């Protein structure tokens, strides 16, 4: 159950990122947000607002220090979702 929830979050996030980056690159879990998807720090802050709205959660920007890949971000979202 928890695992399928997690996979669903990851999938939803990849879709969200596909439209956010607007490029031809297909987003996959181990891609680096900065290096491969070219999401700089300002874009990341705006992406977080969208993610908060998509998942109806609060994602503090100070929690992003350990986030490097798409999967790290999915982990964080999943953690916040299951704690709330």
């Amino acid at each position, binding site marked *: 159950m928890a695992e399928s929830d997690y996979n669903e979050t990851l999938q939803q996030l990849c879709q969200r990122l596909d439209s956010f980056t607007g490029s031809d690159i297909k987003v996959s879990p181990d891609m680096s947000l900065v290096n491969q998807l070219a999401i700089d720090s300002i874009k990341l802050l705006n992406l977080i607002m969208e993610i908060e*709205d998509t998942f109806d959660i609060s994602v503090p920007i*100070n929690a992003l220090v350990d986030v490097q890949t798409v999967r790290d971000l999915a982990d964080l979202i999943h953690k916040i979702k299951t704690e709330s």
Partner: protein
Amino acid sequence: MNLLNKLDAAAALRKAQLPEAVGAFGIPIEEVYSSTEARIGENRVLLFGTNNYLGLSFAPECLKAAHEAIDNEGTGTTGSRMANGSYFGHRELEREFADFYQCRESIVFTTGYQANLGTIAGLVGPGDVVLIDGDSHASIYDGCTLSGADVIRFRHNDVADLDKRLRRLGERSAVTLIIAEGIYSMLGDQAPLVDIISVKNKYNSLLLLDEAHSLGVLGNTGQGLVEKTGMMEGVDFITGTFSKSLCSIGGFCVSNHSQLDQLRYISHPYIFTASPSPATIASTRAALKLLRNGTKLREQLWKNAHQLYSKMSEIGYKLGPEPGPIVAAILDNPKQALALWQGLLENNIYVNLILPPAAPENKSLVRCSINAAHTSEQMQHVCETFAKLYTEIGID
């Protein structure tokens, strides 16, 4: 990559993006003639980007007070108030700010940057929440980082978005500090304060308002957006700076919450830095008097602001959402912004160039700030130059 290589890489990236922008940031000013004119290189240049809203930088009362303070008390305090004591001027200025805002408590900081750092990090800590406008000034972001609290952003000036984010916080909204600004420094727009306060009350949070750019500019006596909207009661903490309409250096926080005083014992940006110098305090006190009685200056400032805003929108420039002492032209790309900025300088007008990522949503801005002392001839020259460059550069 070692530490220095990282800086080299960042510098190379900056130069590759805008090789011609050299000089746009930190331009050398050789001589200052008045609150509206200075020499850059060999040229006498009009100052239209200095946030000197009331034009008080050469006010005789302020100069005299600063001179006397240096003669009587020396050039510096050589340490913090905790270690070296609070001079009469520090205490008086705090009393005068409390009186100005009719508040119980008031603290003076060494800069406006530190006022935000010290107030935010003093009020919230790990486990608490700060909910900030997405377009907040860097000092607000840095204060949040220093605090260790959870930092959440709401969409700029969007009260429905703020409400939604407070709802999501559930019970944590009671340990949440909301932060907004009276006038935003990039586009010159004002916060929807009345609505922010009703949302804040609904969720039982606290509100800090940074009046850096609205002090001296809004309200009958120049208190800022709180006075213009009559909402003093609804704002928990007001911060501001002496570096704009008061023409010195320093910052303050005022509040009706008696707990503000505790910040003097816990807030590092207040404790571990030298207190403002005697001359700084003296000229600020003199400027605050002029500001409170500055109805005529505000009238002139707003007359100039309306003139520039309406002229520039008539020409066709894309501008911020409302007129005010900050008028920012939003350009399509950094190259166009640079061309406009350079064109203005060639016509002896100094304004601010703001390129991504400094401006919201990666905009490129050419930002003017208006001064009550700008004469009608100076205003006219600026309006005409903007019109001429619009066609020359092909902005539309």
